[in-house]
C-alpha cells in the first residue's frame, strides 16, 4: 500500500485507465501515488483500513456560519463562544471514522469566561504600553514565562473536549518541559523591544552584530523552531484516548532536525527566484506602487506559503510516526498543494470579505479526509473509557485555550 511511487507514475494516466467502478472504489487522489517523497511512513501499515470521510455540505455550513458570525458581530463578540461551539459541533459531527462521528463538548459559558480573562489581560497590556512603553519588554517576559503553562492547559482543553465512540481524549503535558525553549525565545523577543539607540547608533560593528545574532538570527534559526518542535512533540506524546496513550516515535530534537531538512521545496525555490525577478523588474520600472505590491507578494509567499509548507510537512512526519493502541495513520497530503490551497483560501477570503470561509473550510476538510488513511490492528474493544473522565473546562484550561495560540502542526 505505501510503497514509494515510481518516477514514471502518473495519476492522470491512472485515472484514464481506471474503470468507473474502480474509480469509485479507489479514488486516485487517495492512493499513495500522491505521497510526498519526504513523508513515507516509518511504520508498516498492517491492520484493517478504516474509512475516514467528511460529509458536510458547503451550503449547510454556510448557513450556520453566516448566522453565527452575524450574531457574534451584533453582540460585540459575546456570542462568540456559542458560535464556536455550534460550528465545532457541526464540523465534528460530519467527520466520520469507520462510519462513526466525532463529538466535541465545549461549554460556551466556560469559553466566555476564558475570553473575558484574556480580553482583560490584553487590555491591560495595551494600556500599560501606552502609559509607559518601557514596561513592554517586562510584560513580554512575563507572557513568555506564562506560555508553557498556558500551552499545557490549552492542549488539555483541546483534547478533553474531543470524543470518539463516546471515549474522551486527554492530555497531560507538564509545563516544565516547555520552559527552556520558551524562556530563550521570550528573552530574545523582550530584548528586541528594548530601546537601545546606543547599540544601533554605536560605531561598534561587534555590538551591532551581536545584537542581530541574538535578536534576529538565533530566534529564527534555533529558538522558534525548537519551541515549535517541543510543542509538536508534547502535544501528541502526552495525549491519550481512553486507556490508550498516544505514542509518537520522534523526540523534539528529531522534529527540529526534520524541520530544518524540510524547510524548502522546489516551489519555494521557484517562488524565491520569481520574487527576486519581480523585485528587479519593479526597481527597473521605478514605479513605487509596483514595488509595494511586489513586496506584498513576497510577504505572502514567505510567510503564508512557507509557514504552511513547513507545518504540513511536520504534520505528515508526525502522522507517520504516531500510533494510539493499534491505530496508525498514513498521510498522502502533498505539502506544496496544501500550502497553495491555504494561500488560495486566504486570497479568496480577502476578495469575498470573508464569505468564502465556509466553502474553504469544508473543501479543506474533504481534501484532508481523502488523503489521510487509518489502519486498525485488533478491534475497537482495546480502547476503553477511563473510569473518571477529566473535566474539559477547568478555569486554567479555559484561560489557556482562550489565548488560542496558533500551535497546530
Amino acid at each position, binding site marked *: 500500500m505505501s510503497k514509494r511511487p515510481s518516477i514514471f507514475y502518473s495519476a492522470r494516466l491512472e485515472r484514464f485507465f481506471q474503470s468507473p467502478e474502480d474509480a469509485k472504489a479507489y479514488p486516485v487522489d487517495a492512493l499513495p501515488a500522491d505521497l510526498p517523497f519526504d513523508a513515507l511512513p516509518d511504520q508498516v501499515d498492517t491492520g484493517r483500513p478504516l474509512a475516514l470521510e467528511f460529509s458536510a455540505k458547503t451550503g449547510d455550513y454556510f448557513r450556520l456560519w453566516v448566522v453565527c458570525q452575524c450574531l457574534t458581530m451584533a453582540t460585540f463578540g459575546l456570542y462568540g463562544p456559542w458560535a464556536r461551539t455550534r460550528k465545532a459541533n457541526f464540523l465534528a459531527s460530519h467527520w466520520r471514522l469507520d462510519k462513526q462521528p466525532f463529538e466535541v463538548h465545549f461549554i460556551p459559558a466556560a469559553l466566555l469566561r476564558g475570553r473575558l480573562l484574556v480580553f482583560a489581560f490584553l487590555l491591560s497590556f495595551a494600556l500599560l504600553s501606552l502609559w509607559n512603553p518601557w514596561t513592554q519588554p517586562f510584560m513580554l517576559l512575563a507572557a513568555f514565562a506564562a506560555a508553557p503553562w498556558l500551552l499545557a492547559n490549552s492542549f488539555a482543553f483541546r483534547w478533553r473536549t474531543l470524543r470518539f465512540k463516546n471515549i474522551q481524549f486527554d492530555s497531560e503535558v507538564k509545563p516544565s518541559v516547555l520552559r527552556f525553549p520558551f524562556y530563550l525565545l521570550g528573552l530574545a523577543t523582550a530584548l528586541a523591544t528594548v530601546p537601545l539607540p546606543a547599540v544601533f547608533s554605536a560605531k561598534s560593528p561587534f555590538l551591532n552584530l551581536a545584537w542581530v545574532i541574538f535578536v534576529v538570527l538565533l530566534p529564527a534559526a534555533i529558538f522558534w523552531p525548537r519551541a515549535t518542535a517541543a510543542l509538536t512533540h508534547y502535544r501528541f506524546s502526552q495525549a491519550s484516548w481512553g486507556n490508550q496513550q498516544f505514542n509518537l516515535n520522534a523526540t523534539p530534537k528529531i522534529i527540529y532536525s526534520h524541520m530544518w531538512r524540510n524547510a524548502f521545496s522546489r516551489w519555494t525555490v521557484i517562488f524565491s527566484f520569481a520574487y527576486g525577478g519581480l523585485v528587479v523588474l519593479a526597481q527597473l520600472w521605478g514605479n513605487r506602487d509596483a514595488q509595494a505590491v511586489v513586496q506584498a507578494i513576497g510577504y505572502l509567499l514567505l510567510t*503564508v506559503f512557507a509557514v504552511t509548507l513547513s507545518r504540513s510537512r511536520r504534520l505528515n512526519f508526525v502522522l507517520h510516526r504516531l500510533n494510539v493502541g493499534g491505530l496508525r495513520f498514513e498521510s498522502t497530503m502533498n505539502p506544496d498543494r496544501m500550502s497553495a490551497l491555504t494561500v488560495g483560501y486566504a486570497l479568496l477570503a480577502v476578495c469575498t470579505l470573508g464569505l468564502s470561509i465556509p466553502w474553504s473550510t469544508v473543501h479543506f476538510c474533504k481534501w484532508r479526509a481523502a488523503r489521510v488513511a487509518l489502519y486498525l490492528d485488533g478491534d475497537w474493544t482495546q480502547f476503553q473509557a477511563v473510569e473518571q473522565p477529566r473535566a474539559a473546562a477547568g478555569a486554567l484550561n479555559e484561560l489557556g485555550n482562550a489565548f488560542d495560540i496558533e500551535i497546530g502542526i
Partner: protein
Amino acid sequence: MKNQTAQLRSEKNHIDRAIASLPVVVVCAVALVLIPVLLVIFALPVLANFAAQNLPVRMEKSLGNYILNSGELLLDPTQLSAQITDQYRARVEKLAAVAQLGAVEVHFRAGLPNALALPGNIVVLTDGLVKTMADGDAIDAVIAHELGHLHHRHLIKTIVSTSLLTEVVLHLNSESAATNRTSNMVAGLALSPHYSRANEREADRYAIELLIKNQQSPLLFAKAMRLMAEAYKSRGGLPSGYTASHPDMESRAQMAENYKLP
C-alpha cells in the same frame, strides 16, 4: 440539505430557525460584508479621533519619548552647532506660540532631510532638513506642517486606527491564521497609506493657515515642498502613488499656490 433544513425548521430554537431561513441567511451575509466596510470607512476615523483627543497627556508624552529614544528612528546625534540649533528651536517656539500649542520639545538628529512630529508635543528636525532649507523662511512651512500633526494628534490616531483595523480583520477571519495574515497585509497595503495621506493633507492645510496667521506667505509652503523634492531628486525621488505615505510634493506645492482663504 433539504432534509437538514427541514429538520432545523422543525426545531424550536430560534437560532436554528434563523439558520434554516433563507431570507435571514441572505440578510446576515449582506450585513456581514456591509457592517465591517461601513465601520472601516465611517466609524474608524471617528473612534480614532475620539481616542486621540481623550488620551491623557502623560501617556502621549511617555510614548513620544519612547519612540524618540528607541532604535526605531535609527537617527544619530546632530552635527549642528548649539548656536544653529538654538536659532531653529526659537523658530519652532515662535510658531508653536502662534498656534497656541503650549510648550513644544525640539530635538535635532543627523540624517536625510526630514522632520517628525511625535506624541507629547515633540518635534524632531534633521541636519539634512536644516541644510536643505538654509536660505530664507521656508523651514517655517515644514515646522508648521509638523505642528499640524501635533495639533491633530495624527500619530496617536494612526496607532489607534491601525489597532482597530487589525481588530476588525481579526474578527472577520479569526478561523485561519493564514487568512488573517493575508487580510492584514491587504488592509495595510490598501488602507494605511490612504489614512496617512489624508493626515498629511490635513497637516498641509493647517500649516498654510498657520503661516498666514503668522503673517507669512503660503507660497513658503510651496517653496519648501519643491526644495524637499529637489533634495531627494538625486536619490531617486520621494515615493509617490497609491501606496506612498505622503502625497507627491508637486501636488502639495500646487495646493499651497492655489490656496484660498476660507
